[in-house]
């Protein structure tokens, strides 16, 4: 009994200490956002929260981020996932090189990618489009290690060779075999990859800031230069939004997404 009492005391102490470390800054953000907004204001108010919707650039930045996240998801779904399956099925010699390629972004910090990719985006801006949505290209590479890991874990759990043979014996085309038979069995891995995409696109600052694209984070920084209160309430709102999103997704589906690591 003495031992469980000790364990409980330690547990409470650790949770209390780390909890304070994590929660006090979040509370401080709320505290800051309710500070008197104008000199004329006498007390605390929620004005900075109320004027979030009327911020210029913000709505469009959120919309653009969503579109970018959507494109990243499409790239995962129609390019990365089929390639990984294809290599496992038809080109076993390439499994190892593909893995190395997919893990390469782990060794390359985002700030380094910017240095290398700046000429490419200069070209894209001049010849194709100046839209921040073009960042989907580099973002899909940044999350490649996590996409690959959750995919390969999901693929290891099912015997895709048997599935593929069965599908083809029954007359399915290669396209139908991949899209209709194999992909549904690794649904969870794909969903997890999509979650990482949303988190990454909403949170990315390094690349977009240096390449001068107005993404969500860059716009928040820009608002922060004119109105601290509003910028802080937008930040807190976005944290709560993602937190609620994560709490709503059933725990079993989230499991592997939670294991991802942001090295950007």
């Amino acid at each position, binding site marked *: 009994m003495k031992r469980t009492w000790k364990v409980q005391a330690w547990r409470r102490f650790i949770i209390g200490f*780390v909890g304070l470390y994590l929660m006090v800054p979040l509370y401080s*953000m709320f505290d800051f956002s309710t500070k008197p907004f104008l000199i004329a204001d006498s007390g605390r108010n929620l004005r900075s929260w109320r004027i979030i919707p009327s911020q210029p650039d913000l709505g469009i930045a959120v919309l653009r981020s969503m579109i970018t996240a959507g494109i990243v998801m499409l790239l995962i779904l129609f390019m990365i996932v089929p*390639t990984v399956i294809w290599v496992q099925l038809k080109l076993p010699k390439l499994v190892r090189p593909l893995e190395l390629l997919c893990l390469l972004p782990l060794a390359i910090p*985002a700030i380094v990618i910017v240095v290398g990719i700046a000429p490419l985006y200069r070209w894209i801006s001049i010849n194709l489009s100046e839209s921040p949505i073009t960042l989907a290209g*580099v973002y899909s590479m940044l999350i490649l290690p996590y996409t690959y890991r959750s995919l390969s874990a999901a693929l290891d759990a099912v015997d895709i060779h048997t599935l593929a043979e069965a599908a083809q014996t029954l007359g399915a085309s290669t396209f139908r075999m991949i899209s209709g038979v194999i992909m549904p069995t690794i649904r969870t891995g794909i969903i997890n990859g999509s979650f990482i995409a949303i988190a990454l696109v909403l949170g990315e*600052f*390094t690349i977009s800031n240096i390449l001068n694209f107005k993404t969500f984070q860059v716009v928040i920084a820009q608002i922060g230069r004119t109105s601290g209160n509003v910028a*802080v309430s937008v930040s807190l709102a976005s944290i709560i939004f993602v937190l609620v999103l994560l709490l709503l997704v059933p725990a079993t589906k*989230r499991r592997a997404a939670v294991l991802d*690591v942001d090295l950007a």
Partner: protein
Amino acid sequence: MTQVTDPRAGTATSRAGSRHWRSQSAYLGVLPFLVFSGLFLLYPTYNVVSGAFKNNENEFSTAALSEAFHSSITIHAFKNSLVLSLWTAVAGSILGGLFAWALVTGKKEGYFYRFSIALSSVLAQFGGVMLTFAFLATFGFNGVISTLAMKVMPSSFLADSAWLYGLNGLIVVYTFFQIPLMVLVFLPTIENLRPQWREASDSLGGNSREYWTRIGIPVLTPSFAGAALLLFVNSFSAYATAATLINLTSFLTPLQIATALSSEVGGANPAEAKALSFIMIVVVTFVMALYALLRRRVTKWEANR
């Protein structure tokens, strides 16, 4: 007769040809991905690595690299980066590891457990501008803690927010996202500690301390060290938080790279940016290789169990 065999022979060869073509055409399936990753991943990597050995006139030269090794600013920034990564990896892995243990000893899949994991996944990604705001609101001028400190103990360092904009401040701020990351990375390992081991240790007469020193800690050490290496890389590569919190353009290596890259300042120096980037790649690759070695040990152990 020959009329019959000839077309057959023809089909045979053409079929063999089609089979050969089919096996070669399998490689076509990876082409889109190869082109795409070539553009957005391999090209930037090649650009940095080859650029590190060129000068700004695109000629072969190791001047930028040797300049990096001799410049006191660069060495100072690199040292700061290493110290910062080391401290936040240590602090983050210890605090996060303990918190993961506290979560496991609690009710599994309870509300607190689920909330903690969801919050960890949000806060581990939480960096840059928003993190800077959070800490300015806490320790900055008129922040929650600094106001409190001003009232309670006006002479302490907390009352004056200057410390926040230096190395110590960055350590405190970075640890904020290192702890949740550690929780996420380490939780699966600590959940894998078998209760049977504890029972075995207890029934053989071991006490709590003996269990941890002889079983728990030795078993967890490789994963713990691996996670700490991951945290090191995470902190070493981070740019956004430092960039928004402090204005010193060459305080950390990532900040120095950004300064060398952007022409706003006037003295854009792509060769320097690439040389510094190359050094970063070398450090990160080295640490990630160590991580891979450790993981292999862990996986082997998990497979043999």
